[in-house]
């Protein structure tokens, strides 16, 4: 075949014909197509030649056509060898399309696929992060079991990559490898654990996804990352947010105690039917103790709230279900507004949201009552939406709004959409049973509908009326008579059956009509539906028992008809009834009770919402929508009776120190990388060294360098001057943002860069991130970084201070300590935990904070009054105090029901700080700017053993809440922090000199605090 001319033909329309040929083959099984259609063969032959040509354009054309084939679901697997050759193509588009092909067919052609692996392995070492990432993506998407070890190695390497984008891809690859080979679980969990510690917002969503897929039960891996995830949440991309929120909901249900007070929701019908009564009693006992929410629990609830404003319906729904499942019931109300907003969206979103609202509205009517009218039905809504809205309207109906609703329902009943009209009638029935005031009105309305022209409407009304009458065994003779008349006209079997049953049940109330009805139906018996036949038999039996004089013959006639019916059910029933009611010598003891059996009081059916039992599924899940457990559904656990130890969420020093080691070093230190062969390790280290080289400005490493700094917050610094400038600008523009926060960075300062993880651990994420956004404009201009990141405390001393001695407090004792957590009440406050003990043998009631005597500018956020404290009971509460960066005393009164005690809290200077993570380079830079006036120093003399690094570190962090700055020199220790109120930097340096002396230097703008800190540190460091 002269390929070139043919190829040309193909492109200009000739392709059309062959494509049609292909279309025909595709319906047959792909292998069956072999050899049958020569045009197919020819075409592929031609593609092969194009792929082997030298011209990129020809190759590209061929690849495009192949992708077209894949898209249509046609088989293109025989081209595999030809395509795979191009995997190393220089042309980026060809390469991409080859990747597409490879991922699709590698599974089928495993041996050939192996040819491409080396290309990816090479690409994994590429200096360009996007190439590394895409190589990992494709490598991990090729589902060939032989390469599992290679994938594992690649994932391991990528999870320690400097680029967060590559690490994100590594997180995705974990799931792929897991589904390919679940044996690797343990090793993958290790990687997940490592990636969970990652501070980049880019990685967070993906790694949590991997966690959910691989090891959702390893909740222990979350503890240490819980606070970080909560804080990062706002900055994570929307899809990641959904996954993280769902995971955190489950986490919260295992780690915190229930915030739902007994009797909290009066309309809360929810009962824990799993619990026995005793358990409930126990629970009640426990709940009598005043409840204080764990600050971490509060953190989650607070940090997800802004996401209710997301444009992404899935995020809004995720937050809504979080509030529903873990927030105090009084706070869950805020979600209704956002959910109602989603109803403006397209029908699929409406469908899911309405389903969830339906479930919620059963339990807590109050939440959606103000939005009642938003659920009114429009004639243009699809039927499924209409029915869901109707469901919600029914759930929301109460005495106050029922009259409006009934008027609305009247319109619906007339709808042209008959399915909907029928549903409305059911709804009216449900309203009638749940709200007794209107049951008569409803019944009358339904009776009116009996004269409706539409049969479906009438039938549905009959069924509902039947149920209603059964529930109210009052005299409704008139209605029954009316319905008996309907039998002549109505043909819908269910309705006929219902009427017959109703007459049978009430046959003594309508003695004249019932036999007549039996007469009529006996006539039409043979042509009735099976359903109706059974009811005719029942009616006959009942009448035979109550009024045998009139109906004996009729019943026997019907029984005879039934005996020869085609349906065995009816024959069975006939035989059964005959034995039971017609007395003969064989009939046993049962026939004596026939009347009791047939005319027993029957329990009324319950008209219930189909959404009644759905609440045991987590809202917003697939399982909830389907109302069955979907594969992989993770059960939401019940609240624990006693909260597990909250301290597991505290982040400790060792880990941080490890994370802070420069990435290059960390790689080598990693002990568990048994997969590294000798040579690879070499390559690896050479790579990392080239990375650090490129960090100093070489072209190839530009991306690299950027990530490097973004990756771990070690490069951040410079914020001393930054915050000054920031404040200046804030004043200039009179903007509220930042309010003296050092994170407030300067827009004029264009040579600054931002990192994607800039907001890291900071307490006010939106601010810091949004501000840093504003300056990422000139990424290429300089390498300086300006973000100060608040890190987690290195060490939390357990030392408590006495607030109120039990002797002076008439048995009430109070201690306080500084948990060194960012305060949840305000950015500028220091959080203080107060533990109250009752040492008397009586209850102490109404403990609260009375009058406050605070120096100028100082503020205090008090705890909620404690209703009562049992004898020997103790309770811990948190308060927030803004000390204005001074060591002045905060005086206030601690009051009980009867007494008031004046107490003071004087903060040690070290507690007025928040630790800051920065690199050595930045530290030096900042220090340079804070010289002269801003520097205080002193010389310390102590025994050499006191100058071991660990001793110094322990001593310093014990006194002050500072962060450790990784140091390149053994004899210099650096610590960084910022003041809580103004966010000024506080830099502490301990420089070991010859002999047993050391120089202690503190650089800060706040010279007063600086010198106080110096004075406190000096004796501590020189002591043995």
């Amino acid at each position: 075949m002269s390929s070139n001319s043919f190829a040309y033909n193909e492109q200009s329309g000739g392709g059309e014909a062959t494509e049609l040929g292909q279309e025909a083959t595709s319906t047959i099984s792909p292998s069956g197509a072999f050899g049958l259609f020569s045009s197919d063969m020819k075409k592929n032959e031609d593609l092969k030649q194009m792929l082997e040509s030298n011209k990129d354009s020809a190759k590209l054309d061929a690849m495009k056509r192949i992708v077209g084939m894949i898209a249509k679901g046609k088989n293109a697997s025989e081209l595999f060898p030809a395509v795979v050759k191009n995997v190393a193509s220089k042309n980026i588009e060809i390469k991409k399309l080859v990747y597409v092909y490879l991922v699709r067919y590698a599974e089928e052609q495993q041996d050939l696929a192996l040819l491409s692996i080396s290309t990816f392995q090479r690409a994994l070492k590429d200096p360009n992060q996007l190439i590394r990432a895409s190589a990992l993506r494709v490598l991990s998407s090729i589902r060939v079991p032989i390469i599992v070890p290679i994938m594992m190695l690649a994932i391991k390497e990528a999870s320690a990559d400097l680029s967060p984008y590559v690490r994100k891809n590594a997180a995705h690859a974990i799931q792929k490898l897991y589904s390919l080979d679940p044996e690797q679980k343990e090793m993958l969990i290790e990687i997940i654990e490592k990636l969970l510690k990652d501070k980049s917002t880019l990685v967070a969503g993906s790694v949590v996804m991997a966690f959910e897929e691989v090891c959702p039960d390893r909740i222990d891996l979350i503890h240490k990352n819980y606070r970080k995830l909560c804080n990062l949440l706002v900055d994570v991309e929307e899809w990641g947010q959904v996954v993280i929120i769902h995971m955190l909901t489950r986490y919260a249900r295992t780690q915190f105690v229930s915030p739902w007070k007994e009797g909290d929701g009066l309309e809360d019908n929810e009962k824990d039917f799993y619990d026995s009564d005793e358990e409930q009693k126990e629970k009640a006992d426990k709940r009598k103790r005043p409840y204080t929410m764990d600050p971490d629990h509060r953190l989650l609830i607070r940090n997800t709230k802004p996401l209710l404003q997301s444009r992404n319906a899935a995020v809004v729904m995720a937050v809504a279900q979080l509030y529903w499942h873990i927030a105090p019931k009084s706070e869950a109300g805020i979600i209704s507004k956002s959910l109602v907003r989603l109803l403006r969206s397209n029908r699929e979103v409406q469908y899911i949201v309405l389903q969830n609202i339906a479930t919620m509205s059963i339990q807590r009517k109050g939440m959606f009552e103000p939005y009642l009218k938003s659920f009114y039905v429009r004639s243009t809504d699809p039927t499924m939406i209409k029915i869901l809205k109707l469901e919600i309207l029914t759930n929301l109906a109460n005495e106050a709004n029922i009259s409006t609703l009934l008027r609305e329902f009247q319109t619906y009943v007339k709808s042209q959409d008959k399915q909907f009209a029928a549903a409305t009638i059911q709804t009216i029935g449900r309203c009638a049973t749940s709200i007794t005031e209107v049951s008569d009105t409803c019944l009358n309305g339904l009776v009116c509908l009996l004269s409706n022209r539409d049969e479906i409407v009438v039938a549905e009304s009959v069924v509902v009326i039947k149920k209603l009458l059964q529930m109210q065994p009052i005299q409704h003779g008139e209605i029954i008579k009316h319905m008996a008349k309907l039998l002549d006209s109505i043909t819908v079997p269910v309705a006929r059956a219902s009427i017959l049953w109703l007459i049978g049940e009430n046959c003594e109330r309508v003695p004249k009509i019932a036999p007549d009805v039996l007469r009529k139906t006996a006539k039409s018996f043979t042509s009735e539906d099976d359903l109706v036949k059974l009811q005719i038999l029942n009616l006959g039996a009942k009448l035979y028992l109550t009024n045998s004089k009139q109906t004996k013959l009729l019943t026997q006639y019907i029984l005879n008809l039934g005996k020869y019916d085609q349906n065995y059910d009816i024959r069975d029933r006939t035989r059964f009834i005959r034995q039971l009611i017609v007395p003969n010598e064989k009939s046993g003891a049962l026939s004596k009770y026939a009347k009791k059996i047939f005319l027993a009081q029957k329990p009324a059916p319950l008209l219930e919402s189909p959404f009644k039992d759905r609440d045991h599924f987590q809202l917003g899940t697939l399982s909830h929508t389907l109302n069955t457990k979907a594969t992989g559904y993770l059960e939401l656990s019940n609240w624990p009776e006693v909260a597990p130890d909250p301290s597991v969420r505290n982040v400790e020093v060792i880990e941080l120190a490890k994370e802070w080691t420069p990435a290059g070093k960390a790689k080598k230190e990693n002990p568990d990388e048994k997969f590294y062969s000798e040579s690879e390790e070499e390559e690896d280290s050479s790579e990392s060294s080239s990375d650090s080289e490129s960090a100093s400005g070489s072209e190839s490493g530009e991306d690299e360098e950027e990530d490097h700094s973004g990756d771990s917050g070690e490069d951040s610094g410079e914020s001393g001057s930054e915050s000054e400038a920031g404040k200046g600008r804030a004043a200039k523009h009179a903007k509220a943002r930042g309010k003296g926060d050092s994170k407030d960075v300067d827009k004029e300062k264009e040579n600054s860069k931002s990192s994607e993880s800039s907001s890291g651990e900071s307490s006010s994420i939106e601010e810091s991130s949004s501000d840093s956004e504003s300056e990422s404009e000139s990424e290429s201009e300089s390498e300086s970084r300006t973000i100060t990141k608040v890190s987690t405390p290195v060490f939390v001393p357990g030392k408590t201070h006495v607030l109120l001695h039990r002797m002076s407090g008439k048995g009430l004792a109070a201690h306080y300590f500084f948990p060194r957590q960012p305060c949840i009440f305000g950015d500028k406050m220091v959080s203080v935990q107060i533990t109250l003990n009752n040492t008397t043998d009586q209850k102490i009631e109404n403990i609260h904070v009375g009058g406050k005597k605070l120096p100028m500018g100082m503020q205090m956020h008090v705890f909620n009054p404690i209703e009562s404290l049992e004898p020997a009971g103790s309770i811990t509460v948190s308060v927030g105090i803004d000390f204005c960066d001074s060591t002045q005393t905060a005086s206030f009164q601690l009051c009980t029901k009867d007494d008031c005690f004046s107490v003071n809290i004087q903060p040690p200077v070290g507690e007025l700080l928040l630790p800051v993570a920065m690199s050595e380079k930045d530290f030096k830079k900042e220090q340079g700017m804070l010289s002269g006036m801003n520097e205080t120093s002193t010389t310390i003399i102590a025994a050499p053993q006191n100058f071991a690094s660990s001793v110094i570190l322990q001593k310093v962090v014990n006194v002050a809440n500072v962060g450790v700055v990784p140091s390149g020199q053994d004899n210099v220790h650096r610590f960084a922090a910022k003041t809580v109120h103004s966010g000024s930097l506080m830099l502490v340096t301990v420089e070991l000199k010859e002999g047993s002396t050391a120089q202690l230097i503190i650089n800060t703008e706040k010279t007063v605090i600086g010198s106080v800190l110096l004075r406190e540190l000096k004796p501590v460091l020189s002591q043995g």
Partner: protein
Amino acid sequence: MIHSLFLINCSGDIFLEKHWKSVVSQSVCDYFFEAQEKAADVENVPPVISTPHHYLISIYRDKLFFVSVIQTEVPPLFVIEFLHRVADTFQDYFGECSEAAIKDNVVIVYELLEEMLDNGFPLATESNILKELIKPPTILRSVVNSITGSSNVGDTLPTGQLSNIPWRRAGVKYTNNEAYFDVVEEIDAIIDKSGSTVFAEIQGVIDACIKLSGMPDLSLSFMNPRLLDDVSFHPCIRFKRWESERVLSFIPPDGNFRLISYRVSSQNLVAIPVYVKHSISFKENSSCGRFDITIGPKQNMGKTIEAITVTVHMPKVVLNMNLTPTQGSYTFDPVTKVLTWDVGKITPQKLPSLKGLVNLQSGAPKPEENPSLNIQFKIQQLAISGLKVNRLDMYGEKYKPFKGVKYVTKAGKFQVRT
């Protein structure tokens, strides 16, 4: 999460498939077709279908079904929202989201799907990033490509994905720097037979078209921000600023995007700009009925009401309609039974009306209910809630942008029951 995606047209052909994990046979769609058959109307196909081994989550957009195959538990909204994002992206790239457009650009579609999802988890969904990765087709570019053999895959790497501002690309340059905002408000209302309002609400959006160079930092403030009751934001908006000052502060994406959507607090009374007088009646036992509607202005704040259309879904027994409009033109489709009256502008001197006879199928019972009227209209230069933009400030760049704000009020789901 998302295992595979099938695109299906109205006649039930699967014309595109894409798998992110191992291949799922097309036959899985049979369950979908079954459900579709049962539902009769496309609108009623349930979005979530359970099959023995998979779950199908589908959306219906522009006469196409996007059917995704799911294997394990996933929040259904997650998938639905993502599928809509895919459809939005197609719309954005090809100008329309239709079978023809997708078939014509199948390679680009494939490349897009490849970038948007990795192993079933969304990767890049921001249009600014995608456009850097894969350039949208234009006539000029396709001509150039065919001559030079170059491609539409970006050879530079997107910066957005790696920066802190994933929605904006770096290095944007315009000769004319412009920022336009469209405040579009829609009135949702149900008016009952007697003309009183059963339910009314204002839903608004602010769509922006921003063509500004560099990295502008904008802040948009309102005269009366308290009107906005419930707001949802584009991710670029700084939430804290809004909370504390009620100012929208953001670094915008490049091009067209929806800045916020909002609902005006329900306490405020909603002005209904039009009223309808109607008398529709069907005679008992006769094959005709009368139809008469008149539209007039009401509370229109002195602006003209334009582009009025009335759509009525007539009952099934209606065979034909013989009507005379005093203004505009009408059509009646005897198959779908939809009456559309294109009215145009209202002039208060002479109110537009549509009168005439309705032919019914003889012998059939007369319809129970009169059909509801769905009304569309538009009022230029007016935001019916009274929302007003106060000012737009730009920081971070030195040039002076050209700024503009436009207000439009439209009818949303505006229904008159008769």
